[in-house]
Each structure stands twice: as C-alpha cells, then as structure tokens.
C-alpha cells in the first residue's frame, strides 16, 4: 500500500513542478550584460571588482519592464586575462555565441583590437579604461567610458596639484603599455602649460606590468631630483612598492596616482610610512553618497573584504543603463546609445553623472562625475583640497 502512495505523491509533485516551471521560466526574460574583464592573472582584482559591481546592480535592479516584457539583468563573465587576444576571443564569444550586446570591458590596452568588432556589431561598450581618444571618438558611438579618462584627470588636476604643492620638477613612472605612453604625453602637455612658472618635466620611465622591482627605473628618475613623481595608473601593489623602493633610495617628494583606484590599507601595509604623501585622484577620503557607503558595507558582508575600486563606477553604469533602456523601451544598442548620451543620472555612487567630452573627443561619451583627490597620511586617505580645472 505504501509504494503506490509514494508513487502517487511523487507523480503529483512532478505534475505540480512541471506545471509551475514554465510559468517561472517565462516570468521574466534574461537581459545579459557581459563582464568582459580579467578574472584571473595579475589584473584579476580589477575584473572581479567590475563583476561584483554588476552583480550588486543586478540584485538592486530586480525585474524591469521593456516594451511590455519583463526582464532580469544577468551577468555573464568572460575572462580576458587583461590580454588583447583573449579579449578579442571573449567579445566574439559574447556577441556571436551568447547574443550579448552590452558589457563592461576593462583596459585601454585591450581596446584597439576590439574596437572594429564594437563598431561592426554595435555592441554597447562600457569601457573601464583610462587613456583618451583611442577609445572615445566619433567613430565609436557605442563606446562609453565609465571612468574618468586620463585627459580628464590630467586636464583637471595636473596643473592644480603642481601649483598647490609648489612642485617644480615633475617625473613620470608608468606601465609600458598604451595607458602609460598616452598618459606620459598627457602630463607632458599639462606641464608645458606651467613652463613660464619654472615647472619642468624631468624624465619618464616605464615598467612591465606585474613588475615588483622598480629600483633601477627609480634610480634614473631620482637622479633628476623630482619634486613629484606621477605614477600614472599604477595599481595598489605597484605604487606601494614604488613608494617603498623610492624612499629606500632617498626620495622624499610626492607621488601622484591618476587613473588607478588605490587601497589605503594595502599601501600602508606594504610601504608603511613610505606610503605617506601619495596623492590619488578618484579616491574618496569621505564617502560621497549614502549609496557609496551602503555598497561598501554590502560588499564587505557578501565577499568578506573591502570593496575593490572598480566596483562603484560599474555599478553606477549598470543602473544607469537599465534606467535608460526602460525609458527608451528598446534594447537596440544604437538607439540606447543615443538615449544614454543625452541622459544624466543623479543616483551614481559618486554623485550626479552625465556624459561630456565633446570638445576633447568630438563626441559625448565620457562620463562626467565628481572626481575627488585624496592624500595618504598614516595609512588613511585625507581629503586633498585642490581646485580642479574644467573638462569639456
């Protein structure tokens, strides 16, 4: 008697499940956003930050409606290992195999080979990349840079920082890739503006990404007696070692870090007091918004560590994108790109955001958000009160 009862129960359960399953499956469609980022290799921290930013955004967006259909944001990750060839393979897989039309792509260096694919397919690229015109120009109307560009950072801050610190001799130490070369040019152009005031550019050196010994490069720069060494987008681990090794060689001046997002505790752990007087752009000494604080707390709770620097801008961009798609009522990337370019977004974790850069790049595809400056003192970021210039 027991067996038939069990069989009936199982059958009933299966019937209930099979009846309910289609309803659940079709309750909402999936809106896929690619995280085309490094999640392994030396740059994995950047990529995981973006991936997590998208995941938090997906949680907060929930279900949304476009043209009468319900959708849910789904994050699809493609590991690029921060290498151009792997990024080409990743975007091809995303676009042609998985029909992903939107995504965050990390790295100025990986962008040149994928831009033709982006142009051809109309893929809407949220470029998490510094550098400048190589990505943002009228030929790439679906490429939106969601972090401050190098031009933006140097144009708004380089002169102001040099003047505030009274620095007369400025040197550059950056990675030997697209970003480093571009940014060295950008800072040279800005220093040129201060020539009349006795400020000069005294030398540039480049290192292989992932390097841990900067002594030889620093030696050459320090011999030029700089007051400020601009370290470009050197990530936390690199700038901490640069500062430590530079102080060991007797350097007492300032460091400026433009495009990276640095972690104060990690720098302080690695470099100790040698990390003092690193000035970083894009770092908030005090949280700018309530959302910023909430995200930091959620990240800590969910992943058990401090939020990586790439999280905020990715989160903001994803929320902004969904808002725009809902308003535009379409997933057509070209129409969405137009709508996005003409929109602004008040709820970015950094504060009100819009798109700019028309004068510099010939197209409004550069995010314009509040850019802070902070200086590291005793292992903590303190606000660095410097009046930024204008970026157009």
């Amino acid at each position, binding site marked *: 008697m027991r067996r038939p009862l069990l069989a009936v129960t199982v059958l009933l359960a299966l019937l209930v499940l099979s009846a309910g399953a289609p309803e659940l499956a079709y309750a909402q469609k999936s809106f896929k956003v690619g995280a085309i980022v490094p999640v392994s*290799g030396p740059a994995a*921290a950047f990529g995981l930050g973006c991936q997590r930013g998208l995941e938090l955004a997906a949680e907060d967006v929930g279900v949304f409606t476009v043209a009468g259909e319900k959708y849910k944001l789904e994050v699809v990750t493609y590991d690029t290992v921060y290498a151009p060839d792997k990024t080409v393979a990743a975007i091809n897989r995303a676009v042609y195999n998985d029909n992903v039309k939107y995504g965050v792509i990390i790295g100025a260096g990986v962008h040149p080979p994928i831009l033709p694919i982006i142009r051809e397919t109309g893929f809407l690229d949220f470029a998490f990349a510094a550098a400048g015109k190589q990505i943002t120009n009228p030929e790439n109307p679906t490429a939106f840079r969601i972090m401050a560009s190098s031009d933006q950072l140097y144009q708004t801050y380089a002169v102001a920082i040099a003047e505030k610190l009274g620095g007369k001799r400025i040197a550059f130490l950056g990675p*030997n890739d697209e970003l480093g070369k571009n940014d060295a040019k950008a800072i040279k152009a800005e220093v040129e503006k201060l020539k009349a005031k006795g400020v000069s550019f005294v030398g540039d050196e480049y*290192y292989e990404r992932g390097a*841990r*010994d900067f002594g030889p490069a620093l030696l050459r720069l320090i011999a030029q007696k700089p007051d400020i060494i601009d370290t470009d987008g050197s990530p936390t681990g690199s700038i901490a070692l640069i500062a430590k090794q530079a102080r*060991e060689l007797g350097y007492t001046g300032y460091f400026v870090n433009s495009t990276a997002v640095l972690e104060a505790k990690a720098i302080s752990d*690695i470099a100790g007091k040698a990390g003092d007087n690193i000035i970083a752009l894009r770092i908030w000494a005090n949280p700018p918004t309530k959302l910023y604080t909430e995200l930091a707390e959620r990240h800590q709770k969910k992943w058990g*560590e401090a939020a990586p620097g790439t999280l905020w801008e990715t989160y903001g961009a994803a929320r902004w994108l969904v808002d725009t798609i809902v308003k535009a009522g379409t997933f057509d990337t070209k129409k969405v790109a137009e709508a996005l370019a003409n929109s602004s977004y008040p709820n970015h974790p950094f504060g009100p955001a819009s798109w700019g850069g028309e004068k510099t790049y010939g197209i409004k595809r550069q995010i314009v958000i509040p850019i802070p400056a902070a200086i590291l003192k005793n292992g903590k970021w303190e606000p660095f009160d410097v009046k930024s210039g204008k970026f157009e």
Partner: protein
Amino acid sequence: MDLYLHLIAQGLAIGVLTGILYVLIALGLTLIYGILHIVNFAHGEIYMLGAMGVFYVYVVLKWPFAATLVVILVLSLLLGLVVERAFFRSLRGQWLQLVVASVGLSLIIQSLGWIAFGIQEKNVPSFFTGIVSFGGVRLPTERLIAAGVGAVLVVLLYLLVYRTKVGLAMRAIEEDEETARMLGINADRVAALACAVGFALAALAGAFVAPIYSLNPGMGGEAILMSFLIIIVGGLGSITGTVLAGLLVGVVQSVGAVLLGAEAAYGLVFVMMIVVLVVRPAGLLGRA
C-alpha cells in the same frame, strides 16, 4: 662620488641583490628539471603558496616566524611528494604530457588562490627594516637578509646534490635512470625526494621574498618567466649556472636601466639570453 658613477654603483648593488632573489626563486625549478627533466610550470604557484603561507600563519595566526617556516617547509615537502606521485611519476619521460600537466596544475592552483585568498594585495611586515649605506650606496636591510638566505640555500642545495649519497643517486638518475635502477637505486623514491625538495625551495623562496614584495595569487606567474629565463641562460639543471645567470640577469637589468632606461633594460635581458644561447646553446654551464 661623481653622480654617474654613483648611479652605476647603486644600480650594480640593486642588481646583485635582485639577482640573488631571482636565484632563490629559480633554484627549485632547476633542481626539478635537473633531476626529473620536468619543466614545472606550477613552480611559480608553489612560490606564491609559500608567500601566502607566511601571510596566513605568521601575520594572521601570529605564529613565530621560525614555526611558520617549519609549517611551510613540511607542507611544501608533502605537496611535492603528492604531486610527484599523482602527476609526475606516471608521466616521466613524456615531455609534452608533463608540460600540459604542470601548466594545468599551475592554472588550478592560481584559480583556487584567487578564490581562497581574495583579490586584495596582501603584505607581510618587514622582519628587518632600515637601510645599510656603503659609500653612499643604499641597501635595504631586508633585501640583504633575503640575499643571505638565498646564498645559504644555494650552498645547502649544492651540498645535498654533490656531497651526499642522496645527491649522488639524484645525479645518477639524471645521468641514466635505467642504469641507476640496475645499480639498485630506488629511482621513484629519489625522484619524489627531488620533487619535494624543489617544491620546498620554491615555497621557502616565497616565504623570504614575502616581506619585500606585495602578495597576490597572480605573483607566481610573474616570477616564473624570470625563473625560466635564468635556468635557460644558466644551463638547464646546473645549480652553479643558475646562480651565475641570476646574478647576470639582475645586474644587466639594473645597470641597463641606469644606462638606457628601464624599458630598454627589460629588452636587454632577452637580448642577452639570445646572445648566450647563440654562443653557448646549452646555456652558460649546461651540458650539450
């Protein structure tokens, strides 16, 4: 001292100290290749695990440093034995399969590393802070100590390979495994020991380098390139060659950077490798 001469002297000092660190990292790799003829791509990850071991045992659990070293030594020896038994033994003599197996192992360890250790850079506080100055040439104490440890490990490895019965057995296997077996040498056991010692050297290198650099699970990948370069230039399997090549690479890179810039110096190291291999295809002290 003239500024230019001072720069070269400082560059030379940095180069020698960096070179010894390179040697420290490459030693285990050269031992495993020398005895087992295995190009162990997972060597960098064992180095990373050694460094992370110091972070978790010494910094997080606050064990004494000596106890930390013992833990790392024991675990890395065991890991070497396990990997040799599970992967390397059945593939011995099959070069391509071994390369694939060790690359796979490297990727597995690194990927697990990102999951287990997280993405934030980690740091081990310096055991020895301060600067030692010789005639204006500044040398960080922690690097001097690490270089000293490197030198001691080189000597110990040399004594193991050239002055002990086990070392004799290792060299016999390297020379001709079949004949060594016929002479009663338990080749499997000796190979397992060589693998374990190679792993331990990599992990100890990570442990001593940890306070000098910052740590992340990708650090092994960065170290392995230079290690391969050094053992190739030195002559595959030659301990003395590894030492010479490590110092040479460190000095060329450092003095080259002073004279030509860091970017050019990086290329210069590879030019040097090509020149060495053209003149001596088996490396500085390698056997053809």
